[in-house]
């Protein structure tokens, strides 16, 4: 992670893509979202969705994984150049999560993130808060998920 001071509003990150297989959709749903349209092809065919779809939480959790992987690659690049790496803190939450279209078995979702705001934390001087808009589009270019989240990023001035 870059330090808070170096983050530019408007900066966009391409996080990569993930294909949702029927078996991964069902395995996730068995643990966390056991509704018929996430569990069983035949029952899903009779639902409003017409076919097996991924839990929206599955689609969101995969964004997190790709974001962590992206940050790791960025950190590796910083270390290779001998630059310091800022800590990425936790998140106080997110808002405006929209599941815009169903994610069907076999769909490949490409995720991206754009910085929409930065502000220093008032309560934690070592940290700033980065607001990001996150989205995923399917192989047809249709948006399937969008949300706005906030995360703590270490400030350079606060670095040890």
């Amino acid at each position, binding site marked *: 992670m870059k330090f808070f001071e170096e983050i530019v509003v408007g900066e966009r990150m391409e996080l990569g893509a993930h294909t949702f297989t029927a078996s991964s959709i069902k395995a996730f749903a068995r*643990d*966390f*979202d*056991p*509704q*018929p*349209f996430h569990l*069983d092809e*035949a*029952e*899903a065919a*009779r*639902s*409003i*969705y017409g076919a097996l779809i991924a*839990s*929206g*939480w599955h689609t*969101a*959790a*995969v964004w*997190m*994984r790709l974001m*962590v992987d992206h940050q790791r690659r960025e950190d590796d690049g910083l270390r290779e150049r001998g630059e310091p790496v800022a*800590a*990425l*803190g*936790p*998140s*106080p*939450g*997110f*808002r*405006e*999560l*929209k*599941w815009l279209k169903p994610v069907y078995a076999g769909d490949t979702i490409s995720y991206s993130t754009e910085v929409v705001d930065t502000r220093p934390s008032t309560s*934690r001087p070592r*940290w700033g808060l980065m607001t990001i808009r996150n989205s995923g589009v399917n192989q047809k270019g249709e948006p399937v998920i969008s*949300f706005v989240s906030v995360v*703590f990023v270490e400030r350079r001035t606060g670095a040890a």
Partner: protein
Amino acid sequence: MSVSKLFWEDFYQGRVFEHGPRRLPREEMIAFAAEFDPQPMHLDEAAARATMMGGLCASGWYLCCIVMRMIVDAFAHDAASMGSPGVDEVKWLIPVRPDDQVRLRATVIETRASGSRPDMGFVRFAFELFNAEGVRAMTLSSSMMMARRNARYPAGGESETKVAR
């Protein structure tokens, strides 16, 4: 597959559903993090101690998934759920630790019929997740789509929709 018992009409403003306690096992918490949120604060006790969280804590996305599971177990398994268009807001208020016991409270905030689909309606909920001490650890506000009693389309995979009871 049983016939749904709860339809849109059964979710009225102020109705409360409660569920739990549910233990969040350390292994499950870490396994989720390894797959979806592999950050030190969610994976490794020693590394987590050096972070803002001060020790190993659940991924917020794991908590969202646990809330979802508790929603299903509390009422959605028995309801004509047709999914959700999204989530207005989630706040992660305090860290949730391995083996914590959590409880869910779901309060119906408002309901409205769908303008475009006479067979369904929306139910807006405030979900609150509490830890074993009764401290609120997370809030989630979200709408769910529910079939109406007169629905022609089955929700939850029913091949026919009946008015139960």
